[in-house]
C-alpha cells in the first residue's frame, strides 16, 4: 500500500535523524540522559501524528519542535523537582566560572554551556544544526527578529569566550 510505504519512509528518516535529535536535545536538556529520555518521548509523539507532517517541509525542523515541546512538558511535570535542579545548576555555573578562568583553553561545548538557554538554543539550531533563521524561529515559537537578536548575542558571547587570549 502507498500509505505503508510512506510510513516506512517516515520511520527511515526518523532513524536517520536520531543522532541530530540527540545532539539538539543535549543542548536543550544539558544532561545527556534527560536528553535521550526527551528524544524518546518526542519520537513516540511524532509517530502518533506522523500523518500531520507535510512531506514538502523539513522533517528536522518538525522534529526539533516536538523535542522542544516535550522538554517543556517534562519540566512542567517535574515541577518543583526541576526548580531545585535548575537552581543547583545555576549555582554550579557560578562556581565554574572562576575555575574555567584558570584553564587556558575552553572547549566549544563548555563555552556553549555558559550561554543563557535562549541564546544556546538559537546558536544550536542555526549554527550547529544548520537551520535557516525562519525555521529556527518556528521551532522556538518566536518572531524572527527575536531569533536574530538571540543569535547575535550568543555569537558575541561565544566569540569572547573562545577567543585566544580572551581568558586572562
Amino acid at each position, binding site marked *: 500500500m502507498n500509505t505503508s510505504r510512506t510510513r516506512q519512509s517516515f520511520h527511515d528518516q526518523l*532513524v536517520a535523524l536520531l543522532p541530530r535529535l540527540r545532539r539538539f536535545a543535549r543542548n536543550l536538556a544539558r544532561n545527556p540522559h534527560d536528553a535521550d529520555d526527551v528524544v524518546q518521548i518526542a519520537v513516540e509523539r511524532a509517530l502518533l501524528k506522523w500523518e500531520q507532517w507535510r512531506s514538502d517541509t523539513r522533517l528536522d525542523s518538525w522534529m526539533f519542535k516536538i523535542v522542544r515541546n516535550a522538554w517543556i512538558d517534562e519540566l512542567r511535570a517535574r515541577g518543583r523537582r526541576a526548580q531545585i535542579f535548575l537552581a543547583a545548576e545555576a549555582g554550579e555555573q557560578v562556581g565554574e566560572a572562576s575555575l574555567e578562568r584558570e584553564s587556558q583553553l575552553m572547549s*566549544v561545548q563548555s563555552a556553549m554551556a555558559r550561554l543563557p538557554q535562549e541564546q544556546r538554543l538559537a546558536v544550536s539550531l542555526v549554527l550547529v544544526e544548520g537551520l535557516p533563521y525562519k525555521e529556527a524561529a518556528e521551532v522556538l515559537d518566536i518572531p524572527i527578529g527575536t531569533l536574530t537578536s538571540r543569535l547575535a548575542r550568543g555569537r558575541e558571547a561565544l566569540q569572547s569566550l573562545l577567543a585566544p587570549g580572551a581568558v586572562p
Partner: protein
Amino acid sequence: MSLSEETLMAYADGELNPEAAAEVETAMRDDPKIAQRIARHRALRATLQQAYAAELALPVPDRLLAAARAAPASGVDRPTRLPRWGFASMAAALLIGIGVAFFAWRHVEAPMIQTAGGARVAGGALDRGLSTLLSGESVPGSPVRIGLSFRAKSGDYCRTFVLVNAASGLACRHATRWEILALAPAPAAADSGYRTAGSALPEAIVAAVEARMAGEPMDRNGELEARARYWQAAPP
C-alpha cells in the same frame, strides 16, 4: 559606514536578500574591516560545526532505535480520539492508573546491582548516578556518591562509587552499561560520613583502581566532557 553586526551575521549565514547582500558586498570592498567581521562570523560557524560533528558518530541507544521503528501506538484502524468514558471504564482506568503508578515505582526502585551476560552491571539509581553525577555531587534521596573518575589503560572510563552505609565499588563503562569490576561492603559505620571519598575506599577497591588507572584522575572539566559523550571511550 554603519552596517549592524546583525546584518553582517545574516550575510555570513546567507540570510540576506540579494539587494541587501549586494550592499554588504559593496561595503566589504570599501572597508577591509567589514570583510574581517564577516570572516569572524563564518569562522565561528565552522568552529561549532566541527566541535559538534563528533556527537553524530555516537552510538544511538537501542531503545531510541526501537522507538523510531515502532508502529505508532494508535494503529491505522483505531480511532485517534479517545472514546467517551462511562463510570465502568473510569473505574477501570483508575485501576490501570494504580497499576501504572506501581509499575513506575517498581521501575524507580530497580536493583542497583544486576547481572547481565555473566557480568555484574549497574542498574537503577546506581546506573543513573554513575552516568550523571560529577564527583562529589549527590541527588537528594539517592545513596549514590561518586569518588573519582579516570581513564583505564583500555581507554574505557571508570568511576569509583559509594552506596552510603552499604558498599563501595569500581565500575567501568563498556558500550552502553557500567560493569562493576570490584565491590566491597562498607566499612563499619562507627564514624563514617566524615572521611573523604578517597580515604573511605576499602583496600580492595583501591587496588582495583591502581591496577587499571592510566595517568591521573579526571578533573571536573574532564568529567563534564566525558559525560557529554555518554562515557564512551574516545580515541586516545
